[in-house]
C-alpha cells in the first residue's frame, strides 16, 4: 500500500484553487479586452469582460493580501525562500530530472515533505512570481481600475500608458508561468497524483 503524508493544509488548497479560477477568468477577459475586436466570434464581449475583469481582479487582490498575511502568520512563507546552501546543485539536479530523468521514469530527486514541499527550482520560480510579478500585476491592476491614481504624464504620454504596458507584461509573465505550472502538475508519480495532492492535501508515495 501507499504511505501518506499530509503536506498541504486546507487554507493553502482553498487559496490555490480560488486563485486558479480567478487567474483563468482574468486571463480570458484580459485577452478579450486587450485584443477587443467587434468582428471576433470567440472573444468575450467588451462590456462583460470589463465588468468581470474588474470584479475578478479585486477578488484576486484581496486574495493576494490574504495569501501574504496567512503565509507570514503560518510560517509558510519560509517554503518560498530559496535556501542558499547547495542551491545550485539542487536546482541543477532538478533541471537534470526534467530534461533527462523524467523520460526514463526516474523518481523525483526531491519529493515533497511537510518541511519542504517545494523543490529548489519551484522555490526560485514561485518566489519570483508570487513576490515580484504578482505585486506588480496587482498594483498596476488597481491603478487601472481607478485611473485617477496613475501619474499624469510619463515620457510625454498619458500616465496610464506606462501602467497599462507594465500590467500587460506582468500578466504575460504570469500566463507563461501558469501554462508551465499546469503542465508540470502532470509530472508527479502518476499523471494525476500532483493534482490529487493539491485537492486532498495528501502526498502518496506509491509502491511500484
Amino acid at each position, binding site marked *: 500500500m501507499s504511505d501518506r503524508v499530509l503536506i498541504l493544509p486546507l487554507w493553502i488548497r482553498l487559496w490555490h484553487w480560488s486563485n486558479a479560477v480567478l487567474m483563468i477568468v482574468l486571463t480570458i477577459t484580459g485577452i478579450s*479586452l*486587450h*485584443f*477587443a*475586436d*467587434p468582428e471576433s466570434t470567440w472573444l468575450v464581449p*467588451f*462590456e462583460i469582460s*470589463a*465588468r468581470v475583469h*474588474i470584479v475578478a481582479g479585486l477578488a484576486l487582490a484581496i486574495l493576494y493580501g490574504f495569501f501574504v498575511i496567512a503565509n507570514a502568520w503560518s510560517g509558510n512563507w519560509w517554503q518560498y525562500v530559496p535556501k542558499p546552501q547547495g542551491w545550485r546543485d539542487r536546482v541543477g539536479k532538478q533541471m537534470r530530472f*526534467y530534461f533527462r530523468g*523524467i*523520460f*526514463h*521514469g526516474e523518481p523525483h530527486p526531491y519529493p515533497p515533505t511537510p518541511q519542504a514541499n517545494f523543490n529548489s527550482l519551484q522555490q526560485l520560480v514561485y518566489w519570483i512570481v508570487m513576490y515580484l510579478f504578482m505585486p506588480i500585476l496587482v498594483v498596476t491592476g488597481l491603478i487601472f481600475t481607478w*485611473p*485617477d491614481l496613475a501619474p499624469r504624464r510619463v515620457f*510625454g*504620454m*498619458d500616465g*496610464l*500608458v506606462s*501602467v*497599462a*504596458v507594465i500590467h*500587460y*507584461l506582468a500578466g*504575460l509573465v504570469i*500566463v*507563461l508561468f501558469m*501554462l*508551465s505550472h499546469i*503542465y508540470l502538475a*502532470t*509530472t508527479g508519480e502518476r499523471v494525476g497524483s500532483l493534482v490529487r495532492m493539491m485537492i486532498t492535501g495528501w502526498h502518496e508515495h506509491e509502491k511500484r
Partner: protein
Amino acid sequence: MRLAGSVAGVAAISVTGVTASAQAPDSTTRGAMPADPATVAMVRQWNGECVACHTEQALLFPPKAGMDLDRLADALMDPFAFNQSQHGGMACKTFHGKGFQDYPHDKQAGDAILGCSECHAKEAFRIQSQLDRSVHARNLSDRFSCTSCHDPHVDRVARDLADARQVVAQDNGKCLECHNSDERFAELGVSLPEARTRPDIDTIHEWLPNTQRHWQAVRCIECHTPASTHSTIAVNHQILDAEQAERNCTVCHSRDSSLNLRLYRWQTEREASELGFLNSAILGDSYVIGATRNVYLDQLAYWLVGLLLAALALHGGLRIIGALVRKRKGS
C-alpha cells in the same frame, strides 16, 4: 452664452436685405483672422468700442451714465476668448449690424442681426436638415437653434485646437450646459408636452465604467450622432436618442477605433506611428484599452506563448514515448 442667449431668438429668423459682404467667409480674409496686420488692428479697434461697454469691467465702472446695467449684465462677452475664437477676426458690427454702433442702441437694432446661415449657407442647409431629425426637434424645434449649442463668441474650430482634450471640454460643455443644469433644462422644458425632470447624466450612463473619465476623454456626440455624411462637415448634427445611441464599446476600444475618424480626425493627420503603438495619436491624452495596444509587445506575447506551448508539447510527447518504451521493456 450670455450674449448668445439673447441672439438665439433672433438668429433663427433669417434676416434678409442685410449686407454681409465685408466679412463673408469666402472673402480673401476668410474672416477667422485676417492675414494682414493692418486689417487685424482695424477690426480690433472697431471691436474695442463695443468691448468698452460689454465687459464685467464696464458693469463696475460704467463708461457712460444712464446705462441699463441689468440688461447689459445679460449682454457681456470675454474679449480674450473672442479674439481666439473662430470668429475672432470678425468685426462685431458685421454680425450685429449698424444699429448697435452708437449708444443708446437703436431699438430695432436686434432685427438686423445676421443668422448663421447668412455666412454658413451651405453648412447650415445640411445641418438644419440633420437637426430636424434630432431628438431635440421632437418637442423643442421652435426653441432650439444653432445658438442653443454654439456660442459664436467663444467656440473654437476643432481642427485648430491642438489638444483633443480641449475639443472634448468645449463640445461636452455645449451639451452639459443644459443636461447638467436643472435650471437650463427646465427653461426649455416648459415647451415639453409633459413636464420632465432632468435625468442625471452619470446615472443614465452607469453602464459605462469610469464614467467621469469618459466625459473628459470623449465627446457626447461620439455616441449620440451617426458618422458624418459630408466630407466638408466633420460633425453630424443629428443627435440620436437613447435607443439609437452607440453602446458598443469596441466602436472605440478596438484596433479600428472610430476615435480616429471622429475626435482624433485632426490629430491623426499629424500622427507618426510611435514605438509600435496602434492609434498612437491618442496616447498623448489617453490609454484606450484595445485601441492603443503595442504591436511589438503583442508579437512578443504570441512568440513566447507559442514557443512555450511547443516546448511543453515536445516534452509531453517525449514522456509518453519514454513510458511506452519502458512498458515494452518491462513486459
